[in-house]
């Protein structure tokens, strides 16, 4: 394969990379949203446990 053919193939791979990077960016944004949502839920559950422990107490045996 001549160097021009190699160059041509390299350019085509770079152009295809554009689509892959776009997909990666969309995946990162979705993952960010999921992480943020998990953090919110976790904080709420932790706080709920704290509040429940502060309000309630173990039943007498």
């Amino acid at each position, binding site marked *: 394969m*001549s160097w021009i053919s190699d160059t041509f193939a390299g350019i085509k791979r770079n152009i295809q990379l554009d689509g892959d990077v776009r997909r990666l960016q969309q995946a990162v944004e979705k993952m960010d949203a999921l992480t943020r949502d998990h953090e919110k839920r976790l904080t709420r559950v932790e706080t709920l446990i704290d509040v429940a422990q502060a309000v309630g*107490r*173990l*039943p007498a045996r």
Partner: protein
Amino acid sequence: MRTHRIEVLVSKSEKERIEREAALLGASTSEYVRKAAALLDAEDIVGMEDVRSLLPELNAALIRIHDNLVAAAEHSERNQLEIERMRTPEYREEVRRSVVEDEAAVNAMISLLGLTRPEQVSANGKVRSSSHVNETPAPWNDDNPPNGDKSE
């Protein structure tokens, strides 16, 4: 040993350009032409036009790749800052206020943790009956038979 000659007709401007390029390389015109000819075969010359035609698309793709990578990095950094904000005492307090107002959720968590609200606890520390079965049962024995049967 170079003993053969190829005579090539070129225009005045082509000759000037070839001589200029050769001078830039510090080579003679003959040496430059030999090197240039050796560098490319017929397939290369045909393929060069394909490469040239793809260059605008490549440049546009590289700009998009760069923009998308920067956008992804910036989005991730903003997300990280937002998560850090969610870990501050101020945000926790905000959530706490919201949780305290959600009595149903607090009661569900109290029940889930096996805890009891203070208003369900009587003065002697025993749990009062409520809609939930959470009183402390006494063990069954002769003094406390099942179904309250004390006929014996």
